[in-house]
């Protein structure tokens, strides 16, 4: 039997199982902590840093933190909210994110967070990098312009034999995510679709297949990201 612990988020007393991931524990208590790189069911990596909260007044990522008894968490201080907004703006500055021409528009978590934080333009200079779109794969398209390097595909998608399909290449500003030609060769349609869906943005697309729901009627076209948790 699991033990329940009491902890505090922004002054609100919360309850959850001991050792549960803070993001999930907060969700159970109707509190939304924004994230991009976290995905339920796959090991967290803490790379986008958007879910940074204060735990006993020290910064930590909520995706890599497990709740313990009497933990004192702050998630919505003005500084933290400004930091999150800054991270989203940094991602827009770094890549080439042109929402009007993106297949993922309306289902994109980066776009949805930008709406939530009312971002019209990034405060940081735009890089306008020259990046490629890889289309050699029989089933997948990898658009490096849109990739935010969150590692969800690397961590969450393995082939039938449990082998890696996606991995990082290079480092720093040249960091990229590559697809292995061998291990990805015979992936099923279902796995290809899973890869597309695990991607928070439109960086992985399945070839020759459109989204069923038209733009304008998608998940975040009407509802602010996280509102489904906050308005329980």
């Amino acid at each position, binding site marked *: 039997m699991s033990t329940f612990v009491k902890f505090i988020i922004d002054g609100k007393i919360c309850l959850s199982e001991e050792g549960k991931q803070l993001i999930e524990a907060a969700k159970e208590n109707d509190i939304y902590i924004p994230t991009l790189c976290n995905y339920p069911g796959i090991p*967290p990596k803490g790379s986008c*840093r958007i879910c940074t909260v204060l735990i006993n007044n020290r910064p930590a990522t909520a995706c890599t933190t497990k709740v313990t008894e009497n933990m004192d968490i702050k998630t919505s201080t003005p*500084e933290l909210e400004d930091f999150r907004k800054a991270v989203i703006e940094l991602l827009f500055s770094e890549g080439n994110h042109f929402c009007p021409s993106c297949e993922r528009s309306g289902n994109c978590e980066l776009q949805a967070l930008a709406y939530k934080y009312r971002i019209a333009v990034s405060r940081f200079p735009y890089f306008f990098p020259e990046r490629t779109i890889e289309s050699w794969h029989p089933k997948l398209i990898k658009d490096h312009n849109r990739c935010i390097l969150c590692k969800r595909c690397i961590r969450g998608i393995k082939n039938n034999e449990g*082998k*890696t399909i996606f991995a990082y*290449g290079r*480092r720093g500003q040249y960091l990229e995510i*590559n697809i*292995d030609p061998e291990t990805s060769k015979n992936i099923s349609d279902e796995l290809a679709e899973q890869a597309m869906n695990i991607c928070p943005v439109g960086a992985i697309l399945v070839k020759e297949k459109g989204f069923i729901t038209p733009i304008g009627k998608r998940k975040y076209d009407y509802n602010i990201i996280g509102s489904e948790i906050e308005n329980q």
Partner: protein
Amino acid sequence: MGNTINAVIKKYNGDETRLMDILLDIQTELGYISDWTIEQISKALDIPAVEIIQTLSFYHFFHREPKGKYTIYLNDSVVSNFNGKDEVKKAFEEEAGIKFGQVTPDGLIGLFETSCIGMSDQEPAALINEQPFPSLTPEKAKKIIRMMKDGKSIEDIKGNKYGEGNNSHYLMRSLVNNNIQERGPVIFSDYTPGEAIKKIVKELSSTDIIEEIKKSYLRGRGGAGFPTGLKWEIARKAQGDIKYIFCNADEGEPGTFKDRVILTELPKLVFEGMVIAGYAVGAKYGILYLRNEYRYMRDYLEHVLQEMRDDGLLGKFIGGKKGFDFDIRIQCGAGAYVCGEESALIESAEGKRGEPRDRPPFPVESGYLNKPTVVNNVETFCTAVKIILYGSEWYNRMGTKESRGTKVLSVSGDCERPGIYEVEWGFSVNDILRKAGAKTHEILAVQVGGPSGSCISEKEFGRVLAYEDLATGGSLIIIGKKRNLIKDVVLNFQHFFMEESCGSCVPCRVLTVVYKKIIEKIVRGEGKSSDIENLQKWSVYMKNNRCGLGQTATNPTITAIKNFKYLFDESVKNNSESFNTSFNEDEAVKEYIEIFNKK
């Protein structure tokens, strides 16, 4: 080629956690790692090629295409630039007939730049096929290229004017000099290998050792200053059938070179410290993580390890004691500053890209191969040996309240006597400047603790080197008044962090580029006062990065603005906020004019 690859993989028993060694050995044999080679390794180890590329492409000394029979890596550090790197670079280029970043068409010579190679006391320096060539001049550079064209071997090109001390050992034969300017009472005092081991075998238990180290208040010498005794104690109590002791010799902080000298002159002191740590913690395996820039020492260090085995100071039954087994292997890096961070270092030693881990768990609980692992700095191990020999009381008589004992400092830049100084904690910056023969009235700034530390002005030269005042991992770069601080120092450091970010955390990956771009803009004379305000404001976002590199990567800018605001204000004073200073009319209409003129 296939045979070479298979032989190397066999040497490491097909163990994918030894991928770094496999890649290093194959590159040594074949010169570079081609796509075909990657495919062969992938098949032999049964891991996807994309994972091999993930490791390979992370480190800047691995090549995926030929980089020349002779590969020259010229140091791009601040002090190298102070001492005439540009002229040396020009000489290399003129003589070789190519630009940096290129390889000669005949595949003979490749010219590249690299981050600090730990030779700030003898710049400009270059690594040529892993061999250091310090104190270069344009004449020497031209001569080197001519000898390459004549087909001379690296040994011939080096000549025989080897450096002092063990630098001229037959297994090292390096041109590097030690430049030990001051020997202190702890590290560079008299030492007989094996004495401390003899002492613990005879009279000390593992808890005795930990107690003694705790009583000495020894703090880690890598920069963070974590109490060593406590680290050992946690590791000793940690659950685990196997435990590891790592020595962090990935000294990458620009301006730091003390570990180079310690490893050259006192390798047995370092290794003995690891043995003692192993005894205290209950570990049987030690790994020296040696930065690639110091790979020229490897054969010599392997030889030293063998000597220690022969003398019963390593291996089984150390000091004749049953059950006291400990051995050390050397793990080389391949060029990544971030691997100096302990969890990134562990990842790298496991054959992966050097990306820092999330903590907890800390390495003392779950480190190398998920086993309890102690990671300590080279200097920390040396100090521990002396504490065991002479006692914590002896040690506590030196230094200050919060910082006991001595610190080995790497001093470089605009001074008469750059080199190594072992001093008691508590000396002021002024004291060190005097020792190094720097004239205070000619000094603009001192960079304390490297780029991740701080850039201080004359007002603070009275400050004391100690954890309670000016904490430092041990380097001082002296910056003369003749230097352009923003261009020669701040820009170089921001470029360094941009190059060395692992890229995993968004603020670090992106803001290091933003900072470099804005500093460049200021250097071009296009900066505005709002740029300076932004640089100050945005650094707060870096505090939320995962590791120390990310958290300190804007320090060069922030501390320079804090202490030299007038220099920044001066450089932007003529630029109004109301127009785009970077706009260049000629540049903007260039394409139009080209097309227009064609018609």
